[in-house]
């Protein structure tokens, strides 16, 4: 099993969610994060003048999937989160050694 962590634009969450749904990856955990990368922040307005915010709001999606699903999921996310502008985000793949579904006690492959 792998955990796929994708940091994407807030406004792309819906599309990614729907894309994953279409491919029947339904389970996921989402959180609000802030990030910086090549996108060097954006200027916001103060009462007079402006200031730069370098940590921009992003959304982090985490899904644990079977090894054979990794590429599928990564592709689905990458395709739908893309705008070709700086700030589109990153996807990371992280090994997972065990999983449990709390409700049933199912473990590992059966838990996902």
């Amino acid at each position, binding site marked *: 099993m792998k955990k796929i962590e994708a940091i994407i634009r807030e*406004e792309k969450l819906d599309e990614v969610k729907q894309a994953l749904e279409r491919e029947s990856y339904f389970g996921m955990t989402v959180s*609000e994060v*802030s990030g910086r990368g090549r996108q060097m922040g954006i200027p*916001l*307005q103060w009462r007079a003048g*402006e200031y730069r*915010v370098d*940590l921009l*709001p992003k959304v982090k999606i985490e899904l644990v999937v079977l090894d054979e699903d990794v590429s599928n999921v990564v592709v689905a996310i990458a395709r739908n989160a893309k*705008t070709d502008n700086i700030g589109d985000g990153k996807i990371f793949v992280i090994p997972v050694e065990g999983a449990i579904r709390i409700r049933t006690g199912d473990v590992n492959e059966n838990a996902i």
Partner: protein
Amino acid sequence: MAINAADTVWILISSALVMLMTPGLALFYGGMARRSNLLSTIMMSFFALGVIGILWVLYGYSLAFGSDLGGFIGGFDYLGLMSVGQEPSSVYASTVPHLAFMVFQGMFAIITVALITGAVVERMKFSALMLFSVLWLTFIYSPVAHWVWGDGGWLAGIGALDFAGGAVVHINAGISALALVILLGRRRNFPKEVTEPNNIPMVVLGAGLLWFGWFGFNAGSALTADGLATSAFVATNISAASAASTWMVISWLHRRPSLLGVITGAVAGLVAITPAAGFVNPIAAIPIGIVVAFISYYSIVLIKTKLNFDDSLDVFAVHGMGGIWGALATGIFATLAVNPGGASGLIEGNGMQVLIQLVSIITVAVFAFTGTWLLGKMVDMVIGLRVSQKEEMVGLDLSQHGERAYGGSLR
């Protein structure tokens, strides 16, 4: 007539109360939008306090209340507050300074413009909204206000009753909202996704301020501090309470008693009683409130779920339909016992009044719809009505105003 100090206090404080309704509305609307459009939604109301506030004193008041030109519009005699001073006007509100009447009316113009914006949030360009609002004040609001309240206005002439703005404010704003909704089209992903209100306590606060301010709106419209003002005050409160309770019951029957439902009901009740407040017995506000809750509730269902119009914050259903019902209800429940300056309604045997009300509803609706359509089209051609897809996705706070609601070390 001489200035009466108590009436002056009453109009001044009522003006302050109506002024407060616009920030109240800004929060009421803002809390129902998405978080990434929260400031933009607030701005759409708040800017009116500035821009419309200035235009009103420059020429709006004159167009609406200047000396009558053919029953249709006011003349230029009050341009730039010329001859609007500390003395009472010769034709309006004869016991308070003319300036007091002027500013009270100005607060109505401001909030009417702000009301419309609920229909277009999350997708209308701010520059387009500004331009549209200026045109709308000039070519729609001011004439309609003149017809109904101006000395010599033709709707006043045929005996149409509108105590505090059922037609001038609510039908006018609600129908104009509908026209804009059609012109503007739906938000991205509508109706697949319905916006979840980002902050319901903010909506509650807004509704609380609206209810509070509405006492000035309705009871202040008596223009004197007397039994009539009191009667309008009580009717206002009863209608709000009645519609709030009814909406709660409706939502309960459908699922669970909803707080958003209670406050939406309250606002609908306040809308419906607006034209009637000073013409009907306060107790008649109970049926008026009950009925408006049903009308607005099922209008939302119809408009949003059946017709798929994206009237984002339900301006047509709540203000348009609520105002229409209120105008009719005035024709039904009006009684001379409450206001000798008013008329008898259907229940007192004067069916004619309902017809007169119908005429006023239809003319205002048709005028507002056509006018808004034309003005909207024009603005669309000149600068475009909608933000780009991309701006809509990012949210209007950043794309239109370069700001975001909640900052801080992280976000």
